[in-house]
């Protein structure tokens, strides 16, 4: 920490004080060592066995330390080795040491040469149940460091100060502003001596607002209607209609899905499908369409399981919402359960704090945050909340997959299930198979043990067992996936509170083997003043976390969301680092406007539609994107908003616009998803990768999102990486995109469809050309374009005939290639 400050280019509002505290040994609720009898039992029955049977491989004095497990002192035993806790006092099942000495799992049979006598095993059982008393203390006291961050000084950072409702600035050109937003923008422009741009022409404005609110181009009829409508409120009417359209949720829901790193698989080394993730996707789309207040929307996603509900339907919705916490990327092949759990908690903390607070709390996992006033302690306060939470994400254990999980069951019936059902006959058959395989498993296990005892290598049998275990898991999951009648259970991903919530220990440098002080569950200190909200002992604290996040006093939540909305409407946020409001992020270009929007957002009941409506009706949004040399020289990045920045269509809009123009677009949402139909499995093995590229005519938001295997139509045009919170997307302009537009079969098929459409609808070549322009660009071709197009047809058809094609074929190809050219043109791909 200290080492970097000299070089850091950013000024830090953090004061570092180095202090060394002795570690406090893990606090137990009841200290079993207070019991003299227990100690005596340990000394007599347990210690000698440990020394004789185990220390050779599990002691600091021994020859070697296997599996990272030491049994030298109580701390070491409780901590355990690479596989987890050796002993959990009072809990035989969780105590791996007991599993090992009872030979209950063929992977951990200890001592390996010969099982301990039953009487000794019984002693261990008794000892663990009495709380594993053990007087041996770790002789080395582990020092831990606390770099004290000055939280008070940290609060000076603009983003941690409560937003204040600013006075409306005075402006000279009083006729330009049509909303309060415009006053803030204009004041800045005037101060720099710049002019706002004129309003965009009607057609440009219509296309802009259609793509921004619905992600689709207007139809020809809609363009015509709007151009004809002379009502001064014509534009406002369009905006209101779009806000009510179901396409609004598909467009804006997708924005949130970027932020929520939505995906239908685990990603990472073993990429397993999440066949029920689509429920969350639909929940998000529905929430945006219903204009669910943003505070409610967040609360459901963080703590839906803890909310009161009046009906099973509401309960179901609340549970689906918590999928937000469950669908992160996971290393399902992680061998160490505690490592896996801490990584999952880390991912949850990272997602929640970045998505909602634009704060990178996860940086404080291993050390105090290097830039922001977030001590490691705060991280583990949050970690306690998520450690007190069970996460259900599905996936089945199989070869190389060790961390499969259950799913939750919805309290309502799936009207139209996506998973397969089984007949009673099939179920009985599977159960019989399961019985056979389990018998075979036992047989093989005992064979392996005998071989081992005889000193032979049971490697071959082990391999058979591994394959068998996979089959057994698969059968079990299939049987469990249906109810007694063979109907698929309505599974859902999500979270629930653990039965016994507990605080977390700070881990030195994030190392699971170095737990130190316990910290009470809580929140990020710098973001609240006064008392921290209290967390009840018997709850995880997620509900309180959600309440704290959505409290009007939280300085970040509203600001972060209005900034996201601004970013999606202007191509750039008022704070350009939309996922980072910390000290390494960028300062707002219009701090007062940001505060105005944030406070108004809260006051209007956190209504996203109201917010969007106000912005798109502003003169600022309605400006043309025309170039202006003087303004450009003064403000090339358009930070002051002297015009609307020209923008590239995102991947979904581009694909949907092609489908819309060709007439192929199926506006009906599909039920479930391709991944849901494919079911559980390992991508690339049991799940065929080709499912991703199967051609679909529905909107892009419903395409499968498998981590590391995105559909090409999305991937080539910079779709968000679903591995992390993505408030912005890359905007590249590379030959691979040109190649896609030139050669990709999907583009060609859409060109064919558009060609068919214009030929079917119009007779004369000129009318066909005009229709194609109208369908793709929402306008008539210019005279120059018409001339160029006609010349193209002549040249193309002649060349095609010269290559030996007959006239009809040459014409057909020319029309389709023309349609494709329109798709490929910069005008189709960019928005003014």
């Amino acid at each position, binding site marked *: 920490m200290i080492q970097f400050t000299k*070089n850091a280019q950013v000024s830090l509002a953090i004061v570092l004080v180095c202090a060394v505290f002795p570690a406090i040994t893990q606090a137990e609720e009841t200290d079993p060592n207070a019991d003299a009898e227990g100690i005596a039992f340990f000394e007599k029955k347990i210690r000698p066995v440990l020394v004789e049977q185990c220390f050779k491989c599990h002691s600091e004095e021994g020859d070697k330390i296997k599996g990272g497990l030491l049994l030298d002192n109580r701390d070491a035993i409780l901590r355990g080795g690479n596989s987890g806790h050796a002993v959990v006092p009072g809990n035989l099942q969780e105590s791996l040491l007991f599993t090992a000495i009872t030979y209950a799992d063929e992977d951990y049979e200890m001592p390996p040469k010969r099982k301990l006598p039953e009487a000794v095993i019984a002693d261990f059982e008794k000892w663990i149940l009495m709380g594993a008393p053990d007087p041996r203390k770790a002789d080395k006291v582990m020092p831990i460091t606390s770099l004290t961050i000055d939280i008070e000084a940290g609060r000076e950072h603009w983003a941690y100060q409560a937003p204040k409702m600013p006075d409306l600035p005075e402006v000279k050109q009083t006729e330009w502003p049509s909303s309060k937003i415009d006053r803030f923008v204009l004041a800045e422009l005037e101060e720099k001596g710049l002019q706002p741009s004129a309003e965009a022409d009607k057609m440009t404005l219509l296309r802009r607002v259609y793509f921004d609110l619905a992600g689709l181009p207007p139809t020809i009829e809609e363009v015509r209607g709007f151009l004809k409508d002379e009502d001064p409120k014509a534009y406002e009417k369009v905006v209101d209609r779009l806000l009510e359209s179901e396409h609004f949720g598909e467009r804006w829901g997708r924005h949130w899905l970027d932020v929520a790193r939505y995906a239908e698989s685990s990603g990472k080394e073993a990429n397993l499908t999440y066949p029920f993730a689509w429920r969350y996707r639909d929940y998000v789309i529905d929430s945006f369409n219903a204009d669910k207040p943003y505070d409610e929307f967040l609360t459901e996603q963080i703590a839906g399981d803890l909310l009161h509900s009046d009906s099973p339907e509401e309960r179901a919705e609340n549970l689906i919402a918590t999928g937000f916490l469950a669908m992160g990327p996971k290393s399902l092949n992680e061998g160490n359960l505690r490592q896996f759990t801490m990584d999952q908690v880390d991912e949850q903390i990272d997602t929640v704090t970045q998505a909602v607070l634009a704060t990178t709390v996860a940086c404080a996992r291993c050390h105090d945050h290097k830039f922001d006033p977030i001590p490691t302690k705060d991280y583990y306060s949050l970690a306690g909340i998520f450690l007190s939470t069970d996460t259900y994400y599905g996936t089945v254990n199989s070869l190389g997959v060790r961390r499969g999980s259950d799913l939750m069951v919805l309290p309502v019936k799936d009207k139209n299930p996506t998973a397969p059902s089984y007949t009673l006959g099939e179920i009985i058959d599977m159960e019989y198979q399961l019985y056979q395989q389990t018998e075979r498993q036992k047989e093989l296990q005992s064979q392996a043990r005998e071989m081992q005892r005889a000193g032979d290598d049971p490697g071959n049998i082990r391999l058979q067992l591994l394959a068998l275990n996979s089959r057994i898991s698969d059968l079990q999951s299939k049987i469990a996936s249906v109810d007694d009648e063979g109907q698929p259970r309505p599974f859902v991903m999500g979270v629930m509170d653990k039965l016994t919530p507990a605080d977390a220990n700070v881990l030195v440098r994030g190392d699971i083997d170095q737990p130190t002080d316990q910290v009470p569950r809580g929140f990020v200190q710098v973001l609240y003043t006064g008392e921290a909200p209290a967390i009840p002992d018997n709850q995880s604290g997620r509900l309180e976390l959600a309440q704290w996040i959505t409290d009007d006093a939280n300085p970040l939540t509203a600001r972060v969301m209005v900034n996201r909305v601004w970013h999606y409407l202007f191509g750039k946020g008022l704070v350009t680092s939309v996922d980072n409001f910390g000290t390494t992020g960028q300062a707002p270009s219009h701090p007062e406007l940001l505060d105005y929007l944030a406070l108004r957002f809260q006051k209007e009941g956190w209504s996203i539609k109201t917010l969007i409506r106000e912005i798109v009706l502003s003169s600022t949004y309605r400006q043309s994107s025309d*170039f202006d040399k003087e303004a450009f020289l003064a403000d*090339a990045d358009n930070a002051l908003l002297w015009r609307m920045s*020209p923008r590239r269509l995102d991947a979904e809009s581009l694909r949907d616009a092609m489908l819309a123009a060709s007439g192929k677009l199926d506006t009906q949402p599909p039920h479930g998803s391709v991944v849901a139909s494919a079911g559980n499995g390992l991508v690339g093995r049991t799940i065929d990768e080709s499912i991703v590229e199967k051609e679909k005519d529905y909107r892009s938001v419903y395409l499968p999102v498998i981590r590391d295997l995105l559909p090409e139509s999305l991937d080539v045009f910079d779709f968000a990486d679903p591995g992390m919170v993505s408030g912005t997307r890359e905007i*590249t302009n590379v*030959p*691979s995109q040109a190649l896609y537009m030139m*050669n990709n079969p999907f583009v060609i098929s859409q060109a064919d469809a558009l060609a068919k459409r214009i030929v079917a609808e119009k007779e004369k070549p000129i009318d066909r050309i005009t229709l194609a322009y109208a369908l793709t660009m929402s306008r008539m071709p210019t005279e120059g374009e018409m001339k160029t197009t006609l010349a193209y047809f002549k040249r193309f058809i002649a*060349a095609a005939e010269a290559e030996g094609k007959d006239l009809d074929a040459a014409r057909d190809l020319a029309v389709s290639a023309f349609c494709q050219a329109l798709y490929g043109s910069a005008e189709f791909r*960019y928005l003014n």
Partner: protein
Amino acid sequence: MKLHRSPNRVALPDGLGMSRRAALKSLSSGFGYLAFAGLSTMAAEKAQSPLAPKAPHFQPRAKRVIFLCMRGGPSHLDTFDYKPELKKHSGEPGKYGARGGAKLLGSPFEFKPSGKSGLHISELYSKVAEHADDLCIVNSMATDLPNHPQAVVQMHTGNFQFVRPSLGAWTLYGLGTVNENLPGFITINPSIGFGGAQNYGSGFLPAIYQGTAIGQERRSLRSAKVPNISNSRLSSDLQRIQLDLVQSLNREKLARESYQPEVEGVIESYELAFRMQDEVPKVMDLSKEPQKIQEMYGIGNDTTDDFGRQCLLARRFAEAGVRFIEISQGNWDHHRNLKASLTNNAAQTDQPIHALLTDLKQRDMLKDTLVIWAGEFGRTPHAQGTDGRDHNNKGFSLWMAGGGVRGGTTYGSTDEFGYEAVDGKVHIHDWHATILHLMGLDHERLTYRYAGRDFRLTDVYGDVVKGVMA
């Protein structure tokens, strides 16, 4: 912009229809296309293809770069920075670490003097060590932050706070490329995180200077190809006619809107894409390489297959005239399991890099190809846990070989334990300045005027490190 340019030096590609040049000329004489010449260097140079070769500022030592990017922060202490003192005091508390007194960790690997020069190189890189006499190991690197995303982005663009053009983009902008049928800047297997496309982005430079990515992190390169590289139904002639239509629509839009760098980018990327269709599949077809060569690169061996393919592709692209090629290997972030993981990473790269150097040499290409091996930072001399090292931005190593590099030498040094660069410290900006220098570019003169200001790769920093040059 002070680069010397002669507009007629290079023949322009004729697009079968109207040539780009004719088209742009006709535009410039009409609606004031060049009226904004002062806004952007690009506009002033419109009369010429932006990828055409350009004269450097002075005689270059290297014509192209192959950058072996080792993502994650490889430990210099276990590879190229020999620290006997560290080994001697291994296990003792050092003066480092946030709390001070963290235990030192001597390298578990042997260092051997290699080549005539006797450079000390770790046994991990015993094959690369055979080329010791070609390497200049810089032991005194430093970067601003010990954080992956910032350090990776700084290594590529010089600046992690703002989106800036990448090193490859600057090089391409400064020199153009000799093969107009291939992108001038190719990045193989780039990371998704750590700044993502920023690391091969063009920032405010024209979009055509952006790197073209082939393959993707975590995916096997075996199946990597440039997708959509051929058309299923149009001959090249017919596709050209189609493309001429697209381009005339684009130019009309450009003329309407006067200054639209994104549309210019679209126009240029179509031309490049069209030309790539012929050339890329040929260059990427490794099966054309003799079996012996493939084996030399370790192709077919599970451990080395992926990086071997990258190295061989890099050589083929270099041969075909690509200006800047980056290939990469991730997973160097060894907080834990250092010994096993480092061994593994080195095994994946040692033989392929050895083969690349050998191959370049036998083709007489090493003399004007600059090969760089570098990660975003190094690691601490003290242990993290018992078998790991933490990030270290204050001192680390990289090596360069080939074009203009003084082989068989080390440059600069860290302290006795390898914690901090103490002698001849080379900051990323200095390193960038040096690379440009070897390419014949003066980092202070390679500027791009954007929004009324001249920008440089090195901002206001950077000193050319003369000591690494032959």
